[in-house]
C-alpha cells in the first residue's frame, strides 16, 4: 500500500524515529560539504541537496571494521566475534545508494555468508528520497538504480508538493511508519499521478551523455578490448583508489590486527584493487603487477557479462561519484565510452 504524510508531519515522524535509535541523514557539514551524519534533531535534515560524495556504505561496511577480538589464554588463543548490534535508520538516502546497499547485501549473503556484515545490514532501515531532479554526474538510468526505485528500499519517499508519498517496501519499512501511524494516510490518486509525472520528468533529464554499458560489456566479455587501449588508459590513472573507496558497490578489503590493551582486534579495512600491493604475494610475485592489468580487472568485475550473469546487474549504480573523485580521468563513463569506441582521448 502507498501512504502519504503531510509536510509538517515529517518533523514529528523524525522525532519518533530518533527516540527509537540512531538516525543518519545527509546534513550540511562543517565546511559546506553534504555529509551523512547522525542527527540529533529533525531540524538538521536537509531536503534539497546533492548526494554526499562519501557514500553511506560505511554504515554497513565501515572503512575500519572490527571483526573479532583475539585474547591469549595460557597457551591458547580465544577468538570472540564482535557484532555491531546498533539499530540504525538511514534517512533521505538517494536511490543509487539504496541499490548500492542492496548489492552489497547480496554479495555478503553469498556462501559463506558474512555474519558481521549481515548483522549490521539486517538492523538497518533504509528510507530513500526519490530523485525528482537527477544530480549532474549521475547516470542511474543506465544501471536501473534510479532516479526512482521499484524495489530495494524499506521506504521510498517522494516529494509531491504539500505532502510526501510514502512507499513501503519491507517489514522494516512498515515498522518505521508504525511508530506514529496517525501521521500516515492512504495516498490520493492525484498524489500517485504526481509521482508518475515526476518520475517521467526526472528520466527525461538524462541527456545523451549517459553510460552505454551494453556494447562495452560485449567487448569486455569477449576479450575484444585492445591491450594498447588499456595501456593508454592506465597512464591517465594516478592509482589513488578513490574510485573503489567511494563506489557504493565495491567491497574489497584487507585484514590487519590492531593491538589494544593486551588483546588483538582483527579489523577488515577498505582496500582498492587498483593498488599495486593489493594482489602482491608474499613471494614478491604480483599477478597484476602493471596498472593496466589492475584496471582491466576492475572493469571486468564491474562490466563483464560473466559477472552480470552472476549478479544480475553491472557493478555500478550510476551515482557518478567516481567522476568527481577520480584523480585522473579514468572514471566509469569515460572508460566505458573508450571501450565502446575503441579509442581514448583521440
Amino acid at each position, binding site marked *: 500500500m502507498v501512504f502519504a504524510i503531510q509536510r509538517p508531519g515529517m518533523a514529528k515522524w523524525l522525532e519518533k524515529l530518533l527516540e527509537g535509535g540512531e538516525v543518519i541523514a545527509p546534513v550540511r557539514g562543517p*565546511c559546506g560539504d553534504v555529509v551523512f551524519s547522525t542527527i540529533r534533531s529533525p531540524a538538521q535534515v536537509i531536503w534539497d541537496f546533492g548526494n554526499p560524495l562519501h557514500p553511506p556504505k560505511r554504515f554497513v561496511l565501515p572503512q575500519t571494521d572490527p571483526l573479532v577480538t583475539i585474547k591469549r589464554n595460557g597457551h591458547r588463543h580465544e577468538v570472540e566475534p564482535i557484532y555491531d548490534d546498533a539499530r540504525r535508520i538511514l534517512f533521505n538516502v538517494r536511490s543509487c545508494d539504496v541499490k548500492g546497499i542492496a548489492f552489497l547485501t547480496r554479495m555478503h549473503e553469498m556462501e559463506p555468508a558474512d555474519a558481521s556484515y549481515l548483522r549490521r545490514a539486517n538492523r538497518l532501515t533504509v528510507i530513500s528520497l526519490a530523485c525528482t531532479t537527477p544530480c549532474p554526474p549521475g547516470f542511474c538510468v543506465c544501471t536501473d538504480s534510479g532516479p526512482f526505485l521499484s524495489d530495494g528500499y524499506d521506504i521510498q519517499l517522494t516529494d509531491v508538493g504539500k505532502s510526501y508519498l510514502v512507499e513501503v517496501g519491507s517489514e522494516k519499512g512498515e515498522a518505521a511508519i508504525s511508530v506514529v501511524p496517525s501521521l500516515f494516510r492512504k495516498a490520493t490518486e492525484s498524489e500517485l499521478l504526481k509521482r508518475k509525472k515526476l518520475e517521467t520528468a526526472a528520466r527525461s533529464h538524462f541527456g545523451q551523455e549517459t553510460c552505454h554499458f551494453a556494447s562495452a560489456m560485449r567487448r569486455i566479455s569477449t576479450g575484444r578490448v585492445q591491450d594498447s587501449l588499456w595501456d593508454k588508459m592506465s597512464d591517465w590513472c594516478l592509482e*589513488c583508489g578513490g574510485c573503489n573507496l567511494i563506489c557504493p558497490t565495491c567491497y574489497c578489503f584487507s585484514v590487519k590486527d590492531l593491538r589494544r590493551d593486551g588483546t588483538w582486534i582483527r579489523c577488515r579495512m577498505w582496500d582498492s584493487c587498483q593498488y599495486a600491493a593489493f594482489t602482491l604475494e608474499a613471494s614478491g610475485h604480483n599477478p597484476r603487477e602493471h596498472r593496466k592489468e589492475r584496471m582491466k580487472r576492475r572493469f571486468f568485475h564491474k562490466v563483464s557479462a560473466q559477472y552480470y550473469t552472476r549478479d544480475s546487474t553491472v557493478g555500478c549504480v550510476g551515482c557518478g561519484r567516481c567522476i568527481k573523485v577520480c584523480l585522473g580521468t579514468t572514471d566509469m563513463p569515460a572508460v566505458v565510452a573508450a571501450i565502446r569506441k575503441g579509442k581514448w582521448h583521440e
Partner: protein
Amino acid sequence: MSTVPTTCPFCACGCGFYLLANKGELVGVAPSETHPVSLGRLCARGWGAHEAALWGDRLRQPLINRHGNLETASWVEALDDVTRRFRDLIAAGKSVGVLGSPRASNEENYLAGKLARAGFQTNNVDFCFHSICRPLFAGLEDVCGDYAPSISLNDIEASETILLIEGDLAQTHPRAAFSVMKAVEAGAHLVTIGYSRTQMARLSSLHLQTTPGNEGEVIDGLLAAVLRPGGGDRTSLAIPCEGYDALLRNVEAVKITEEMRQAADWIAHATRATFLMAPTSGYGDQTRNAAAALATLAAVTGHLDRPDSGLLPLLARSNVRGACDMGVAPDRLPGHQPLCDQRAQQRLQDLWGKKLPSTRGLEAESLLQSVSGLIVLADDPSAVLPMGGRALAALGKIEFLVVLDAFVTPPSRIAHAVLPIACFAETEGTLTNMEGRVQSLQVATQPPGEARPGWQVLAELCARFDAGVSYNSTTDVLREIAQAAPRYARMEQRASDDEWGGRWVKDPDRGKFKLYATGAAALTSAERPHVLVRDGAFDWGRDPLVSFSPTLSRDSQSQQKLFPNGFVEICKQDADGLGVPVGRQVKLTSVHGNAVVPIRLRADLKPGVLLVPYAFRDHVANVLGTDSVTAVKVEQA
C-alpha cells in the same frame, strides 16, 4: 561518529579532507568537494591518512635514560631532566641545536626556532629535508629574490604550456599531476625534461631526455631558443631584469635541437604557462643552477609577472614551506628574513625580549655531526638526510639527544629523553602548503597515553629557558608568529573566519629578476661511462605516516624484505651488455669508492643510467659519496 575537517599531512599540495572518528578512535577519511585544493579528490596517501595514527607504534609516556635504559617517567621528571642536561651542556660551553620538521605544524616549528635562538642562544636550527630542497630554493632566490611560487595548483589546469622538470610527479605529487593531466586533456602542451620516461613523460607532447643532473643543459637550450631572434615576444616584461646581456652571451654557443626549438616556441607563445620543478637529482650546484635557469626562462618569457602563469616549486613534505617560513634555518629568521637583516633581528629581539645570537648556525647535516645536545622534533634524520647511515651514527654519538615525536622512530630508540607528542590528527595548528595557503589542523581524537600536543611541550621548554610567554592555544602562538614574520601578518585574525584553505601567506615583493643560465658541464668519462643517480623522490616508506599504515606500507615493506641488500635499477640493454641477469649483482666504482649491489630492470631508463631508490641509497653510499649523481664504471660482480 564525528566528522572533523583537517589538512592532509603528506605532501605539500595541502589537500583537505574529513577525519572520521568513532568512540574516540579514527576510523576513516572522507573527501571534501568544497576544499579548494582537493576538490573532492585524494591520492592513495590521503585516503589512508588515518591509519598511521591508529595502527602506529605510538609513544605514550615520557621516557628518560636511567642507568643506560630508557624508562618511563613523569612529564615533570622528563622536562626537568632535559632542562638540567641542556643547561649543563650550555654552561660547559658545548654546542647544542634543534631540528624542526616538515611533519610538524607552523606553531611547533616556530617554537622550535624560538627555543634554539632565544632559549639556547644559538642559530643551530634547521630541518633535515632542508638539505634536499635548499638548492632548489637557492636557485629560485637567485633569480626572483624569494622561493615563493607565483602560481597555484588550480592555475595549472588553464595553462597552454607546462614545462615539468620531471622527477616522477605522478608518484610524488599526485594532486599536482592531476592538474597537469587536466590541462593536457584540454589540449595543453606538456614538455617534460628528465632522465626516464615516466608516466607524465608518456603523457607529454614532447619529452626532452637528459642525463641525470643535466636538466640545466636542456633548460639552457630552451633559453637560447627563446632569446635568439624570432624566439618569441619579450616586449611585455613588466618587471626589470638584470643580467640580460650577460645571459645573451652565455647562451650564444648553446646547441639548440629541433625539439628544444619546438618547446621554446610553445613556452614563448603561450598566454598562460606553468613551470614545475621538484628538488631533483644534481651534483654540486647543478640543481641550484637548473632552478635558476628555469626561473630565468619563466622570467624572460614573461610568465613570472603575468597572472595565472608562473613557477611552482614542488615540495615533497607537508610543511616544508611552513618550516622555512618559520625560520627553521641556520641563516634565516621567521618570515624567511635573512639572519643578517638588522631590522628583522631587532624586531625579533623586541618581540622575544632577549638578545639573539648573530653568528650563522650549522645546517642539519653538520649540526648532527658536531653538537653535544640536540632536540629532534618529529623527524628521523637517518630516513631523510642523503647520507642516512652516517646520520644515524652521528645521532648515536650525541651526548644528550631528545626526541619529540608521536611515533617510535630509530632516533627515539637511542634518545636520552623521549617526549611523546600528539600526531596531526590530535592537535591544533597550521600547515603552509607549497602554494602558500595556511591551513588548519584540527583535533579529531585525543593523543594516546600521556602524549601532549607538541606546541605545549615546546612552549614549556621555551619557558624553562627563559624564552617563553604563556600561550593558551595555538592561536596565541600564531598571533606571535604574525608579529615575528611579516608575511604572516594578522594570520591569527583571519583564522576566525577560516574557510577551507582561505588564508594565504603574503606574496613577496618581486622587485626585479636576475637572470642566469647554467653553463652545464659533462660528467662521464671514458673510464666511467655510466651514471649512477640517487632517486630524488622522498622515501615515504620510512616516514611513520606511511610505514605505520597497513595499507600504505605494503610496497615499501615488500621491497625491504625482498631486497635486503638494496638494488640499483638499470635498463635491459645495459644489463644484457654486462651479461648480468636480473637479481644478480654488479660492482659499481666511482671516484669515491665502490659497492656491490643487485640489479633490477626498469623499462623507462635509457642506456648508461643506473638509478638507486632513495630507500636503498645507503647500500651505494661509498659510490655516491656526498653526490647525488656520479659517474661510475659498472662490471659483473
